[in-house]
């Protein structure tokens, strides 16, 4: 540091002895305890933790607060990710080198790879509506997709399809809350914060028959008289010769089918 200035002789009113004693005292007043532990405590209170891990989208960064994962995304560098985080959440990020964060990083990587691992997401920075929407989306199983209108209805705001789209676009924890599993009402995959192509790739990787459901997102079977979202686990059990495809739930209802009680397709009116 170049901010030290030389003390002038006699500056302290001729009492160099006092100055010397103060310097001596300064060298002896050191914090007790383990400095690493102290630094760790200060950092865990004052900053949120950053780690990177593998994901189906390549290397991603994740920010963790006291109550769970708050932000997930891709970035050109950790610095860029931390800057975006600071602007959005008003907190600094420091590397999560502690055992708890390393353990969480492993669980996040496993969850993103499709393992059934519980990862706590912290959605406290969102509005009540956003949170309801994200919680609904978090419940869409791997390998299945649901339309925007369904998410809106499940979140208690049946007319808010477009608002659901906005929530998906600003999802703070993509992949953990699988917004890529929300598709357009006609069954086409639609847009994605990381690119439409990435969304198709992710869904294919999870076993979603993307081409098959595009334009015909509902499947019915005459054996039970029930129609489902095409990726519903019940729909997948329908024998190929019994499959009836529908572009909309209205069309399926009109043809005399009733909605599945498991995947609960939206029926207008």
């Amino acid at each position, binding site marked *: *540091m*170049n*901010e*030290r*200035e030389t003390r002038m002789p006699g*500056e*302290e*009113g001729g*009492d160099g*002895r*006092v*100055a010397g*004693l*103060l*310097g*001596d*005292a*300064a060298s*002896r*007043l*050191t*914090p*007790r305890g383990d*400095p690493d532990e*102290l*630094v760790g*405590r*200060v*950092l865990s*209170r*004052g*900053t949120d933790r*950053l780690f990177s891990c593998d994901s189906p989208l390549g290397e991603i960064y994740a920010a963790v607060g006291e109550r769970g994962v708050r932000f997930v995304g891709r970035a050109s560098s*950790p*610095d*860029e*990710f*931390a*800057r975006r*985080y*600071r602007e959005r*959440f*008003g*907190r*600094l*990020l*420091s*590397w999560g080198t502690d055992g708890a964060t390393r353990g969480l990083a492993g669980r996040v990587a496993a969850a993103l790879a499709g393992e059934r691992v519980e990862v706590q997401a912290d959605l406290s920075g969102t509005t009540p509506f956003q949170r309801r929407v994200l919680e609904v989306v978090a419940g869409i199983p791997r390998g299945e997709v649901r339309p925007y209108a369904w998410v809106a209805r499940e979140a208690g705001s049946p007319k808010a399809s477009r608002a659901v789209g906005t929530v998906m676009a600003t999802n703070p924890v993509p992949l953990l809350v699988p917004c890529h599993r929300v598709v357009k009402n006609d069954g086409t995959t639609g847009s994605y914060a990381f690119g439409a192509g990435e969304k198709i790739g992710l869904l294919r990787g999870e076993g979603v028959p993307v081409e098959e459901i595009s334009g015909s997102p509902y499947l019915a079977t005459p054996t039970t008289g029930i129609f489902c979202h095409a990726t519903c686990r019940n729909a997948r059990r329908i024998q190929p010769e019994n499959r009836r495809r529908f572009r909309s739930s209205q069309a399926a209802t009109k043809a005399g089918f009733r909605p599945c009680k498991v995947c609960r397709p939206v029926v207008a009116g």
Partner: protein
Amino acid sequence: MDDGLGKGNDLGSPDPLALRLAGGDPAAPRELVERHHAEIYRYARVLLRDTPAAEDAVQEAFSKAFDALGRYSGERIGAIRLRPWLYRITLNVVRNAWRDGRFEVPVAETPEGDDGRCGVVPGVIGADEEAWMDVLWALGRLSERQRVAVSLRYLEDLPYAGISAATGWPENTCKTLVRRGIGHLGALLSDGSDEKEAIR
């Protein structure tokens, strides 16, 4: 919380660590704490005259610093003179503690060094140990402003521009406070300390 340094200060060019904090470098917060926690502790310890209280103050000062850094724009962060800025935050934390009466312990009941902090064993204290503990005791007898100014100048080795930045007081006021504070310390230490002088 402005760092309080206008143009023409003599504290040099922007701090590279401030620029790294501004740029989002996730290694920078740790470096900030590692670089400054010992001196922040020393400062709080001298002002509060209590070891656990000083440790709490270090935690709180860094918390406040990080909260502020989270709110500031990158440009503003990059311009901060971190050292005086941290001292200023610490002084606010210490003042809050004084005001709450949380940490105010009468001098007579708080013999310096009694907390076992630096492993001083009663009975084997040499003349040197006594001398530096005496000066801390005397420092505790100064007025608040003199104690702050003298600590920053002689324990923390800050230049007057830095003391001014860390307190918000004009530089000349800081010089006066330091001069008078040192004078008082000299008087306090020579009062009834003839035996010590004999040992020395």
